């Protein structure tokens, strides 16, 4: 796995509420699989509170990118006793809750990084039997109430993510989950065989936070979206809907995929079929999915790896963000051999498709933005634009015909989550590949000697939302562009010219004399290698690890943008 390219390195601190042990090793494997190379700090055994709250030189030196707090229901010491008064129970509840809030606030304050916090799983014993869950003096009721308080905090604080240990325990089976011998002897709070399940979930949250979620599905049709072969069996012959067991299974698959697409994941067809016949399958009265729900449709007789590649190209995304769904192991093998970065779940029986896909965590949601929800329409309008560019011969004419409008925004609370998302997931148009958490962006906003802007772009085909972010600091008379990212959705639209106009204009107004641009090469950002030269800056340093450009502001400047209208929220 270490042979893979494009690893991002992350420092992950694990604070212990019980033995961490093998969990760290398994977590490392899952993270490597997601393209994240972790370095770990492991806190002392059962000292998560002290490690987080008190001065901790080792942890500050480690400078974590993320902290995971490995607690469980075993971390609760003081439960209600039978027939205890409500007031007393309330005090106990607040004691537990406040100690955790103290941990979270202290981490936010000192380390300023995302936190992953386990919730509490159900208890292995119930004094009141089934009444334990609803009596106020029931221990299980106590646990569930605490969990609700955790969720409230998480909803109000975007840096706290819950790892749903409660769900994982239920999924694994509580009876097996609690391994008393392992607890008494080794202080493992749950069965060691459940460690992969828990680590997988934590890894999914981490990769989602750091922008490594999948973005699109390439889906086969026959025996994947319906039972049977549309070309052989015809519309009446395929199985879909409540009449047959298989039909029910395929209906549930379609329902699931429809929901996935609501998260902004692009559904695409990748099927060996005649397009005209393939299309008819979606006319089935029980078909939840319609032909229009798909962004790119490849129904032809080409090899599937070629089609998956085409889909990636048309969506302008990397193949490592695509999931390929096909019931046929031979097709999966071809794609796997030719496009090893594509994620390919092993679908075997149709009744397990949804389970396999759901357990994969490909689309784990952490920070969902308005842009995510609209992503499908962005993809679709991009396709319309691609068709238009074919119709107009001159590219400038095409750009002018789009009727583009750029809105320049300062950073604020409304656009913050999109800014952070764009910073963390953009790989191609990314000059320095610096990543920032929302806390760090908030800190940046509070600086006086800084210049931060984000840029919205719309045109006659649709609103792309915020598609570019620029962050710079000011040292004396020099503006250093520390970060500049742009979404691949709007490449080749000359937005960079508009942005450069804005930078130069602002610098002239604010008596800045020099603009410095930096480029740090990665495996993915070659596209912007010469961006600053193209914008008219002079290269003053050129080494394999960095290039630096300079621009003298005190010279006549003609605005470069000729293709879009520009407004500002000043």
């Amino acid at each position: 796995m270490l042979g893979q390219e494009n690893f991002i390195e992350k420092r992950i601190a694990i604070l212990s509420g019980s033995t961490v042990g093998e969990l760290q090793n398994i977590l490392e494997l899952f993270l490597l699989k997601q393209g994240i190379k972790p370095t770990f700090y492991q806190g002392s055994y059962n000292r998560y509170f002290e490690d987080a709250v008190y001065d901790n030189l080792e942890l500050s030196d480690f400078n974590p990118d993320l902290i995971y707090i490995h607690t469980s229901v075993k971390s609760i010491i003081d439960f209600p006793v039978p027939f205890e008064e409500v007031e007393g129970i309330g005090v106990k509840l607040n004691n537990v809750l406040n100690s955790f809030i103290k941990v979270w606030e202290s981490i936010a304050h000192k380390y300023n990084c995302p936190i992953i916090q386990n919730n509490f799983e159900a208890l292995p014993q119930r004094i009141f039997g089934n009444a334990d869950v609803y009596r106020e003096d029931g221990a299980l009721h106590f646990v569930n109430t605490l969990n609700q308080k955790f969720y409230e905090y998480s909803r109000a604080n975007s840096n706290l993510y819950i790892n749903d240990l409660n769900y994982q325990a239920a999924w694994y089976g509580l009876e097996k989950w609690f391994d008393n011998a392992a607890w008494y002897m080794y202080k493992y709070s749950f069965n060691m065989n459940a460690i992969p399940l828990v680590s997988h979930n934590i890894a999914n949250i981490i990769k989602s936070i750091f922008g490594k979620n999948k973005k699109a599905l390439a889906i086969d049709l026959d025996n994947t979206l319906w039972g049977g072969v549309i070309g052989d069996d015809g519309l009446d012959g395929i199985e879909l809907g409540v009449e047959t067991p298989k039909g029910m299974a395929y209906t549930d698959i379609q329902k699931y995929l429809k929901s996935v697409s609501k998260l902004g994941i692009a559904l695409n067809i990748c099927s060996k079929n005649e397009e005209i016949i393939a299309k008819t399958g979606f006319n089935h009265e029980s078909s939840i999915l319609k032909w229009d729900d798909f962004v790119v449709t490849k129904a032809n007789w080409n090899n599937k790896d070629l089609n998956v590649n085409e889909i990636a190209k048309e969506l302008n995304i990397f193949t490592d963000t695509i999931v390929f769904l096909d019931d046929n192991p031979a097709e999966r093998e071809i794609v796997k051999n030719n496009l090893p970065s594509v994620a390919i779940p092993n679908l075997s029986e149709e009744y397990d498709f949804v389970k396999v896909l759901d357990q994969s965590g490909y689309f784990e949601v952490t920070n969902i933005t308005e842009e995510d929800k609209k992503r499908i329409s962005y993809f679709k309008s991009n396709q319309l634009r691609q068709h238009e560019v074919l119709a107009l011969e001159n590219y400038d004419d095409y750009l002018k015909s789009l009727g583009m409008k750029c809105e320049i925004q300062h950073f604020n609370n409304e656009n913050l989550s999109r800014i952070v998302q764009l910073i963390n997931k953009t790989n191609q148009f990314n000059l320095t590949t610096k990543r920032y958490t929302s806390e760090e962006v908030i800190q940046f906003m509070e600086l006086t000697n800084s210049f931060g802007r984000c840029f919205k772009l719309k045109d006659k085909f649709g609103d792309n939302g915020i598609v570019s972010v620029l962050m710079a600091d000011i040292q004396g008379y020099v503006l250093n562009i520390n970060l500049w990212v742009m979404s691949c959705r709007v490449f080749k639209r000359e937005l960079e010219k508009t942005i450069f106009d804005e930078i130069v204009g602002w610098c002239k107004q604010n008596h800045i004399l020099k603009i410095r641009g930096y480029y740090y090469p990665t495996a993915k950002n070659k596209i912007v290698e010469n961006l600053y030269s193209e914008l008219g800056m002079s290269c003053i340093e050129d080494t394999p690890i960095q290039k630096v450009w300079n621009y003298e502001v005190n010279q006549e400047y003609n605005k470069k943008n000729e293709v879009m209208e520009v407004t500002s929220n000043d």
Partner: protein
Amino acid sequence: MTENQVFTEVQGIFRDVFDDESLNITNETNANDIEEWDSLEQINLIVAMESTFKIRFTIDEVSELKNVGEMIALINKKVNNE
């Protein structure tokens, strides 16, 4: 299962846990002889023995183990009782 078979299996588990194919254990081998043998690896050894031989150790048994010989004797006793 013969004592030889048990020994071979245990040898394999040690090599697996310590990720060292050249590791040779004897009855006298103990935690002082293998540098990586700390409390966490001890747990991994016990859990691997339990699942390989389909047995469960009691808390007393685990805390009294002194070396590989005692471990193998205990496994032999448990495997042949069942």
